[in-house]
């Protein structure tokens, strides 16, 4: 269950950043990026189906576990190839690699639970359902909102 973003809903409050930071002992894996003064979007691991980081990782520390791109810290050599391979810049390395672990052990990732605006969700369909509902209402009103 990767985390999905409804970009229309992000209010740039950075609550997800602080929550992620808090539950991961001071190291956060999500970053709110501001697009000028007009929008913000949280950036974090997409848990790609074909994850380049897992392909680059020669030690097997990064691997696919169902939908999740999992990380076995014991195998990590800290080489940094995953950081180079990630197309979204959301895996970074100091002594070891750091990335979103979907808050293993929690019922729901902290960023999803804490998001005040419900911009983050584990429901893949949610954002598109909302969009379809908006479009349907607009159509019912003759194309005007």
């Amino acid at each position, binding site marked *: 269950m990767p985390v999905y973003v409804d970009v229309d809903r992000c209010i740039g*409050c950075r*609550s997800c950043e602080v929550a992620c930071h808090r539950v991961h002992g001071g190291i956060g894996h999500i970053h709110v990026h501001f697009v000028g003064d007009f929008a913000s979007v949280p950036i974090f691991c997409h848990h790609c189906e074909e994850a380049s980081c897992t392909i680059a990782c020669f030690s097997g520390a990064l691997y696919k576990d169902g939908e999740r791109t999992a990380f076995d810290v014991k195998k990590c050599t800290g080489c940094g190839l995953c950081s180079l391979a990630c197309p979204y810049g959301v895996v970074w390395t100091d002594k070891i690699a750091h990335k979103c672990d979907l808050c293993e052990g929690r019922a729901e990732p902290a960023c999803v639970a804490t998001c*005040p605006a*419900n911009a983050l969700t584990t429901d893949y369909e949610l954002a598109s359902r909302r969009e379809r509902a908006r479009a349907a209402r607009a159509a019912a009103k003759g194309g005007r909102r």
Partner: protein
Amino acid sequence: MTKVLVPTICPYCGAGCGFFIAVEKERAVGIEYMLDHPVSEGALCSKGNAALEIVGHQERLTSPLKRRGDGWAKISWEEAIGLAAKGLGDAKKRRGPASIAFLASSKCTNEENYLIEKLARLLGSPHVDNCARLCHAPSVVGLNRTLGAAGMTNPIPDVASSRCIFIIGSNLAENHPVISRWVHRAKDAGALVIVADPRETHTSWMADIFLQLAPGTDVALLNGMAHVIIREGLLDGEYIARNTKGFEVLAESVRDFTPEKAAEITGVTADEIVRAARAYASSPASSILYSMGITQHTTGTDNVQAVSNLALICGHLGRSGTGVMPLRGQNNVQGACDMGALAEFYPGYRKASDPETIKYFSSAWEADGLPTGPGLTATEMIEAATSGDVGAMYIVGEDPANSDPSSRRVRKALDALDFLVVQDVFMTATVQAADLVLPGAVWAEKEGSFTNTERRVQWSSKALDPPGSALSDREIICRVALSFGLDFDYPDAASVLAEIKRTVPQYAGITRDRLETGGLIWPCPSHDHPGTPILHSSGFKLAEGRAAIVPVPYRPAVEVANEDYPFVLTTGRAAVHHNAGSMTRRSPSLVSREPDLYVEINPTDAAKLKVVDGDPVTVTTLRGETEAHARLSVGVKEGVVFMPFHFPGTNVLTQETTDPEARIPEFKVSACRISRRD
């Protein structure tokens, strides 16, 4: 030892989100989200998530302190209480009880505020106020006059039932982030959102119609909208006839206030004003959410009345999805006001000037010689300290030296006092001016009830002991009162709430046992009463049961941009900070995200000033000057600049001119000039 989850209420804004503190071996080890909380549904903003960072903070005050030369000496509680009694007692003996002034705290519980109020009154002082004066005093004055009650009319989740949400002078996406979840839920159901603000904010991202008005021109915008609604017959004639009085006078007063005229004053186009007016008036259920952008003006009371006029002529009150919603900034600013920590009231909004009030409390408290009000307001206390009319102050959990306008003047006034006792958790600028410091407790270290912006009274439990020899604020106030021989025998917060239940009619049905998750929304007049989420559903608590429509003439702001000071400075908040910043600036994960004071400048203006993003600049007003980093933003219009007030520099610049009725200072409009610092 096992982990215990202690339910508490967030110490930051007025939304009143709940969360659990996980406690293990008497230490806080984490936060767990409260999924069944009616307002937050488990969500927390960045400040809530960082709340525990201030609990065990190394800069906490852990012992009573007395001033010794330029420094401090740690003293025992016995000595501290003795000094407090002597300092306040001397002032009383020398110049009478009216020479002592009290600032209660909108961070403290209802019970603590009630005790401060009671202590002040029993000592004979008419001067008790709290920082509501600096945020929603105009709502108290304005809404009491027009609607007969000053609180938010509808609860926060009810915003989701709204079909048109008009947000004016509130950046709720940054300051009350969880409210945006309910706005978005309304949008999902097809609601239209109008945002009026001098800046493009995170809140304006949610808007379908965005009205970027010039600072201080809210009355012009609202009058222009009222004109359109009346001219086009979009009003609710039946509602007006049945529930209000004064409509004809309003109609007459806005007859000439065409959208074109409003456009000229506000800088918003006439078309947009017409569109917004039509949308608000013609939706089946519209709500207005407002905040400091409406109140912190010399025209604050006018602004509030203009807001309530709009709701009244459209009949958008008393039903689900409607309402007038002043969003309050602190966890218990509503409760502090309910408990009578306001210059003009005793507990329960009984007027301090009314002999009946004095009679009632003389009997309830078995006391003689209770003072008649209204007393001095928070801002007037500072003036009185300067002139010497007030010789001693007891300040609990407030930081006027940072949060009041023209703060250099405030610091001088505090220094001029014969005796200043401050009860707080950190060494704030106000504490630095004190003669005696009493270390209090943060929310997690005490129990009691907090009343959020929706009038929801919620119980917050104690998770930890205060650090060192710090005590809960209830215990400190009781000890001070006992030293005056007053009978303050309150072993716990519940016993104070039991007395509040007897003396505050709105809380007459509220007991500790009834305050489970979600609490109760006042008025709650009896034991079996479920609370009153929606006000005004059957008339108003005013003469004849009718609301008052009060026409409001447009008055420009006191200061306007001029040759020497060519920019209009407006102030506000940032998402990761709170108020004067005494907590958030000490919270590592918050201050690291917004470490310094900045000033937002439009790039065109910046080019003329030869300033690029990040440049150090000096901002100067008639009151003083301050240093800040330039932040270039097209979110502010040319000629307007913005600074957050979480840093000490900002209120050095703002002016002390106040609203003639509510006595709130003009924080939102100051003429300034900017120069690059090289």
